[in-house]
Every structure is written in structure tokens, then in C-alpha cells.
């Protein structure tokens, strides 16, 4: 491809357009990445938070109902108390189990998954402790057995409460983690955009400088040649600086100067011949 001025300008501006497109691409990438992170934060972080809170509520409800069963058993009778309180407590435990499984599925990292899995383990222990406490609350059990069973039931309840709290903290951590991710992405994108803008600026400046030089240097040279020829100085050489339109113009100048030089030489020779012929005839 011949590097004409038009092609040079097209290449220069095309390059700048490409650079602008790259910077715009980074901007679009950053915005879409940030939007994605924000959506993830909203979806996963908020869901884990709400699951953790729900687990806490169900846990408190399960323990309240189990305690009511033990307290109301004598007044309502075993069957009624079981139907009114214990079955409800078991239902709450199953709810906690299903919520903990959902949280394990949603959790974005192994650490968070492990925290929600611990709820499941604590829940299992709580169920066993509840069964033991229920069995111990039946008639003919020694006071020691009842006391031990209730103590281990309380401990399991406390452990379940603590692991549920850990889950809630993990939910907060996940939300925080995504916030950090958004922060990192936005900082990285800003850095990239600034970097590319600086590179773009430097490239734009150097391209403009190179383009201006490519056009101005041969034009200045031709102006100098034209000025010399117009003042009668034909002993000036015309240089072709480039193979573009200005290069073609230099060739034309060169031809013109050569022709003028030749015609002047011819005229001088003719004048000398005439002078010598005149001198000879005298």
C-alpha cells in the first residue's frame, strides 16, 4: 500500500479510533463486571443472610416449643403436649435442616459451606439430645438421668444457637466479600482506564507529531527550493522525502529545476556562440 498523505491520516485516525474503542471496551467490561458483582452480592449475600436469620428464628422457636413441652407435659398430658409442642419443635428442626442445606448449596466458598454444614451437625446433635431429654422426662427415670439429659439438651441447644450465629456471620462475610470484589474490580478498572488513557495520549501525541513532521518537513524543503529557484539559484537539489503526494510534488519540482537549468545553459551557450561569432566577424 502506497503511504499517501490520505493513507497516513487514515492510519493515524484509525489507530486513535481503535484506541478509543479499547478504552470504551474497558469501561463496558468494568461496568458489566461491577453489575455482575453487585447482582451476586444482592442474590447470594442477601439470601445467605436471610437464611441465617430464618435459622435463628426457627432455632429459637424449636427450643421454645421443646421447653414448653417439658413444662406443659404434666398439665396437658403426654399425648397433648407432644402434639401441641414436641411435634411442632420437630417441624422447626426439619425447617432448620432444609434451610441449612440450601445455604450449603448457595455458599460461594468452602469455608462458608463448612460453617453451614456445622449447623447441620449441631442440629443432628440437638435432635439426639432432644430425644434423650424426651425419653428422660418419662416416668420411672432417675433424677440424675433427667438432669443429665436436660443438661446435654441445653448444651446442644446452645451449640445449635452458636453455629446458627456463625452462619449469620458467614452470610455477612459473603456480602462483605462481594463488596470487596466490587471495590477491587472498580479500582482495577479505573487503573486500567487511566493506564490506557495515558498510553492513548502518548500515542496520539506521537502520531500527531509524526504526521505533522511527515507533512511539514517535505513542504518546508519544497518552499525553500521554490524560494531559491524564484531568486535565480538553480544549484539546489530537490530531495524526495516520502513516497506520498508531496514526494510526487518534489519530483515535479526536480523536473522543473532541471529543465530551467538546461534552458539557461542553452541560452548561455547560444549567447557565447553569438558573441564569439560577432567577435570573429569584426
Amino acid at each position, binding site marked *: 500500500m502506497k503511504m499517501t498523505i490520505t493513507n497516513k491520516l487514515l492510519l493515524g485516525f484509525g489507530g486513535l479510533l481503535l484506541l478509543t474503542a479499547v478504552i470504551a471496551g474497558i469501561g463496558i467490561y468494568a461496568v458489566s463486571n461491577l453489575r455482575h458483582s453487585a447482582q451476586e452480592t444482592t442474590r447470594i449475600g442477601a439470601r445467605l443472610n436471610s437464611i441465617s436469620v430464618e435459622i435463628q428464628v426457627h432455632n429459637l422457636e424449636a427450643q421454645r416449643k421443646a421447653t414448653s413441652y417439658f413444662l406443659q407435659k404434666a398439665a396437658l398430658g403426654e399425648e397433648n403436649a407432644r402434639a401441641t409442642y414436641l411435634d411442632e419443635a420437630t417441624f422447626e428442626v426439619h425447617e432448620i435442616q432444609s434451610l441449612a442445606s440450601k445455604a450449603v448449596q448457595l455458599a460461594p466458598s468452602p469455608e462458608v459451606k463448612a460453617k453451614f454444614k456445622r449447623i447441620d451437625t449441631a442440629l443432628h446433635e440437638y435432635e439426639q439430645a432432644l430425644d434423650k431429654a424426651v425419653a428422660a422426662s418419662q416416668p420411672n427415670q432417675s433424677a440424675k438421668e433427667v438432669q443429665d439429659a436436660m443438661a446435654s439438651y441445653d448444651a446442644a441447644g446452645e451449640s445449635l444457637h452458636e453455629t446458627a450465629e456463625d452462619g449469620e456471620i458467614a452470610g455477612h462475610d459473603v456480602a462483605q466479600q462481594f463488596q470487596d470484589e466490587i471495590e477491587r474490580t472498580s479500582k482495577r478498572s479505573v487503573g486500567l482506564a487511566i493506564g490506557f488513557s495515558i498510553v492513548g495520549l502518548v500515542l496520539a501525541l506521537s502520531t500527531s507529531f509524526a504526521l505533522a513532521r511527515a507533512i511539514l518537513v517535505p513542504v518546508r524543503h519544497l518552499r525553500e527550493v521554490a524560494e531559491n529557484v524564484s531568486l535565480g539559484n538553480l544549484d539546489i537539489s530537490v530531495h524526495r522525502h516520502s513516497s506520498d503526494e508531496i514526494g510526487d510534488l518534489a519530483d*515535479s519540482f*526536480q*523536473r522543473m529545476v*532541471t*529543465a530551467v*537549468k*538546461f*534552458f539557461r*545553459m*542553452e541560452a548561455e551557450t547560444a549567447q557565447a556562440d553569438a558573441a564569439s561569432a560577432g567577435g570573429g566577424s569584426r
Partner: protein
Amino acid sequence: MSVFSQACDKARPFLGPATEKFMERQCKLLKVDQAEITKEHLVKLAWYVKSSASLIMDAAQAEKLEKTIAAG
């Protein structure tokens, strides 16, 4: 088209409006009428062209002109 005209066409990008007059002068130096110039004369004509052209243009240009004419 005569050989002389062909040589003139090749010299025109170097000599412009002075081409015909310049080439006529070289034929005179070669002592051959322009109408009688043949391909066999071209190498000698090109040498005269280079010698005269180096007075009015760069040596490199003159050499290039010589080669162009000699190539026929």
C-alpha cells in the same frame, strides 16, 4: 514510434519540458540524426545523456537516467 521518441518518453520524467531539446543535443554529440537512432545506438546515447545530465542534476539521478535509456 521511433527509437528516439521512445527514448524521449523515458527521459521525460527526469527532464520535463527540456526533454526533446536535450535529447536532440545528445544526438548531435553522437553525430547521428535523431530519425536514424536505432537500439544499437542507445547505450552510447545513454552515456552522452548521463554526461550532460550530470551538469544539470544529481549524479545519482543522471546515472538512473542513463540506465533507463540504455535499457531501451
